[in-house]
C-alpha cells in the first residue's frame, strides 16, 4: 500500500463525510412530515373576532359520509359541511382526508393509534368498533351535557366502554327493511304492494322462511340473496351471541340460540338461497336477472341496488318490515384520538358534525341515514323519497325501522372472527363443499382455536 499522506487524509475525510451524510440522510426522514400542518396554519388569516388561536384540524373518513363533494366527484352535493364549519369558525382550517375503503382506514387507524400520527378526528366503523373498544383509553371521552339524548340508545351503547366513557360520536346508522321485487312476487302469486308485503312478512324468521318456501315452490327460484346476508340480520337479534358480556369468554359454540339460528337458516337455504356470495359478480348480476326476490336493506343498500340494476329491472321496492323486529347493518362514529395536537377543537368539530342538523344535510348529500332521532323530523329526512324504489317514503320508513332496532348485542374482541368462521360455514353449505353438520364442526374447531 502506498498512500501518500495527503491522499490518506483526503480519504479519511471523504470516508467520514460519506458516513456523516448517511447518518444525516437517515435521520432527516422523520422530520419531513411536519411542515404540511404548519404551512397551512401560518398562511391562515389572523384570528377573526370570534376569537381563538388559528388551528388546523385534520378529519379522516372513508366511503361517502356526505360531508364534502370531494367524496364523490360525479355527485353534486347540496351542502358543503366542511366549508360551513370553517365559515362559522374562521380560526379553524380543516384538512379533509377521505379513504375509499373502510379496510384501508382500519389498517391506518390501528397502525397509528399507538405511536401517533392519526388525524385529529377519525371516523371508525361498526365492524371494527369491538376492536377499537380494547383501546378506548387512547381515545377522548366525548360525553357532554349538550349531547344528552342526541343519539339512538343502541348507537350510544355501542360506543360506550366499560368505564362509561363515550368514545365515538355517532354519525349514521343502518336500520334494515326488506327490499323485494314486485313482479317476482306477483309471478309467485304473492301480494306485491309495499303495505301488503309488510303485512305478509310481519312475524319471526320462521314466517319469513315459510313465505320463502311458498315463493320457491311456485317459481323454482331462490327467495333471498345469500345466506351470509340473512345471517347478518338473524345474529343481530341474538343477545348474548358469541361472547359472555361479563367474562369476555367465547360462548358461541355452546350457545343454543346461535346453533338454532344456524340450523334454521341452513334448512331454509337448501331451497331458498341462491348460493351466491354478496358483492360478487354473480350477486350483482342476479339483482337484475331475477335470481332472488328479497334482500335485507339498510338505507345505504338502496344506492347499491340502483347502481347495479340500472334500467335492467324497475320493480325493486321496499317494505317497512323486518323479521323478528329490527336490525342494524353498518354505521360509523367520529372519534378523537387523545394524542392529537388539538384535542379540544377536534371534539368541537366531531360534535358539530354529528349534530342532527348537520347529519340531516349529510343524508341529503349522500343518503347516510342519521343516528340522531331529532334529525328524523328535519324535512330533509322526513320528506325524502326514493324515485328508483317507486317513490318509497324512505325518510319515514327508515325512521320506523330505526326505532325497531333492538338494544345492541354485546360484541367483544373476538366478535368478528367468530362471525367470519360462522358465515364461512354457511357459505360452505351454500356452495356444496360441506353438509351443514360437517361445516358447523369445522367452524367450531376454528372458533376453539381463537383466544
Amino acid at each position, binding site marked *: *500500500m502506498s*498512500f501518500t*499522506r495527503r491522499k*490518506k*487524509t483526503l*480519504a*479519511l475525510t471523504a*470516508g*467520514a463525510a*460519506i*458516513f456523516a451524510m*448517511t*447518518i444525516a440522510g*437517515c435521520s432527516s426522514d422523520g422530520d419531513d412530515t411536519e411542515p404540511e400542518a404548519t404551512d397551512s396554519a401560518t398562511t391562515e388569516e389572523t384570528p377573526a373576532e370570534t376569537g381563538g388561536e388559528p388551528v388546523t384540524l385534520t378529519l379522516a373518513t372513508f366511503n361517502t359520509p356526505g360531508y364534502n363533494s370531494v367524496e364523490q366527484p360525479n355527485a353534486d352535493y347540496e351542502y358543503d359541511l366542511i366549508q360551513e364549519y370553517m365559515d362559522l369558525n374562521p380560526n379553524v382550517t380543516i384538512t379533509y382526508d377521505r379513504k375509499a375503503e373502510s379496510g384501508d382506514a*382500519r*389498517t391506518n387507524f*390501528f*397502525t397509528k*393509534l*399507538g*405511536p401517533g400520527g392519526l388525524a385529529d378526528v377519525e371516523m371508525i366503523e361498526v365492524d371494527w368498533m369491538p*376492536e377499537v373498544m380494547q*383501546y378506548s383509553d*387512547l381515545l377522548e371521552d366525548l360525553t357532554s351535557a349538550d349531547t344528552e339524548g342526541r343519539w339512538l340508545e343502541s348507537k350510544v351503547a355501542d360506543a360506550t366502554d366499560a368505564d362509561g366513557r363515550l368514545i365515538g360520536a355517532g354519525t349514521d346508522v343502518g336500520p334494515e327493511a326488506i327490499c323485494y321485487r314486485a313482479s317476482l312476487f306477483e309471478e309467485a302469486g304473492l301480494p306485491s304492494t309495499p303495505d301488503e308485503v309488510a303485512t305478509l312478512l310481519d312475524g319471526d324468521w320462521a314466517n319469513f322462511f315459510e313465505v320463502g318456501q311458498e315463493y320457491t315452490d311456485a317459481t323454482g327460484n331462490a327467495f333471498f340473496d345469500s345466506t351470509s346476508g340473512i345471517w347478518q340480520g338473524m345474529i343481530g337479534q341474538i343477545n348474548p351471541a358469541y361472547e359472555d358480556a361479563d367474562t369476555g369468554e367465547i360462548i358461541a359454540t355452546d350457545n343454543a340460540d346461535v346453533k338454532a339460528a344456524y340450523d334454521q337458516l341452513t334448512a331454509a337455504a337448501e331451497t331458498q338461497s341462491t348460493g*351466491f*356470495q*354478496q*358483492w*360478487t*359478480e*354473480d350477486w350483482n*348480476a*342476479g339483482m337484475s*336477472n331475477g*335470481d332472488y326476490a328479497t334482500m335485507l336493506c339498510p338505507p345505504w343498500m338502496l344506492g347499491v341496488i340502483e347502481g347495479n340494476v340500472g334500467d335492467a329491472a324497475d320493480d325493486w321496492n321496499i317494505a317497512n318490515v323486518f323479521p323478528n323486529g329490527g336490525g342494524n347493518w353498518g354505521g360509523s362514529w367520529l372519534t378523537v384520538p387523545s394524542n392529537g395536537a388539538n384535542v379540544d377543537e377536534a371534539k368541537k368539530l366531531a360534535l358539530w358534525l354529528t349534530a342532527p342538523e348537520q347529519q340531516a344535510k349529510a343524508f341529503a348529500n349522500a343518503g347516510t341515514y342519521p343516528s340522531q332521532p331529532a334529525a328524523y323530523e328535519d324535512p330533509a329526512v322526513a320528506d325524502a323519497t326514493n324515485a328508483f324504489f317507486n317513490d318509497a317514503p324512505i325518510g319515514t320508513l327508515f325512521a320506523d325501522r330505526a326505532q325497531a332496532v333492538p338494544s345492541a348485542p354485546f360484541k367483544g374482541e373476538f366478535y368478528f*372472527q367468530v362471525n*367470519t368462521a360462522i*358465515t*364461512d*360455514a*354457511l*357459505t*360452505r353449505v351454500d*356452495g*356444496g*363443499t*360441506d353438509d351443514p353438520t360437517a361445516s358447523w364442526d*369445522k367452524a367450531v*374447531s376454528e372458533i376453539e*382455536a*381463537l383466544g
Partner: protein
Amino acid sequence: MATTEVEPRRSQYTWRDKLGHWDVKASPYLYIAPFFIVFGLTGLFPIIYTAVISFMDWDTIRNTGEYLGWDNFQFVLNDRQFWIALRNTFSIFLLSSVPQVIIATFIAAMLDHNLRARTFWRMGVLVPYVMMPVAVALIFSQLFADTYGLINHWLGFIGINPIQWHVDVIPSHLAIASMVNFRWIGYNALILLAAMQAIPRELYEAAAIDGAGKTRRFFSVTLPQIRPTAIFVIITSTIGGLQIFDEPRMFDTTGTGGADKQWLTITMYMYNTGWGQLNFGRAAAIAWLLFLIILAFGLLNFWLTRRLISSDTSGSK
C-alpha cells in the same frame, strides 16, 4: 509490516502516524459502512424485531408484549389453515410458474424472428405487466364469475358444465394462476428474448448447414444458450410465486381466501392473522416460517443452478 521490525517505542510515533495507522485499518470499514448502516436499519432490524415479537403475545398498538416462548410457532404448526395455505401456495406456484416459463420461452422464440413491426410486438407483450393488479383482478373477476362469468358462458357453448371457480380448490387455483401468468409472461418473455438476441448467429448458420431444422435448432442451439437467463427467470418466479398475495386476495371481495380456505396462501394467512385478528406475535411467527421455507427453496434452487450450469459448460465442449 514495518511496525513489527523494531521494538516499538510509543513516544516515537506522532499523532499523525497514529492517525495514518488507524486510517489504513479503519477507512475500508468506513467506506462499506453506509450500506451496512442502511441495511441494518431497514433490513436487519425488522428481521430481528420480528423474531423477538414472534415469541410474544404482542400488542402493536400499546407496544407491549408478554413472553410466550414457542407458543406462537406451536399454534401455527398445529393450525389446519397453515398447512392448507402451504398446499395452496405450492399448488398456485406450480400452476403459474411452470406454464409461465414455458410460454414465455415460446413467445420469446417467436419474437426472435424477423417480424414486421418488431418493436410493436415486443412492447405489446409488456402491456399486461404495466396494468395495475387491481384492474387485472377486476377483469378476471368478470371472467371467472361462477354463474354469470364469461368463461363459464363459453364453456356452455361446447357443452361443459359451469365450473365453480370460487368453490372448488383446483379451479380456484387455475383462475388465480391465469391472473399471475397474464401479468408476468410478457415480462419474462422480454428477458428471455434479450438472451436469445445475444446468441451468435453463426451457431444457427452452422447448424442449418449441418441440416438442422427449425425445431432442432431451437432445442439444440437456442435453449442451451439461454440457460443462465432461464435460471434467473425461474428463480425470480419461484420467489414471487411463494410470496403470492395480490391476486388471491383480490379473487373475491372478502379477501380471506374463500369459505373453506380454498385459495388462502401463506402471505394471506400472515396478513389475516396480523391485520385481521391484530395478532402480531403469531403473524411474526408465520413470517419467520415463510422465511425459512423460502430459504430452503432458495438453497434448492442454488444447488439446481450449479448443477445446470456445470452441465452446460461440460456439454458445450
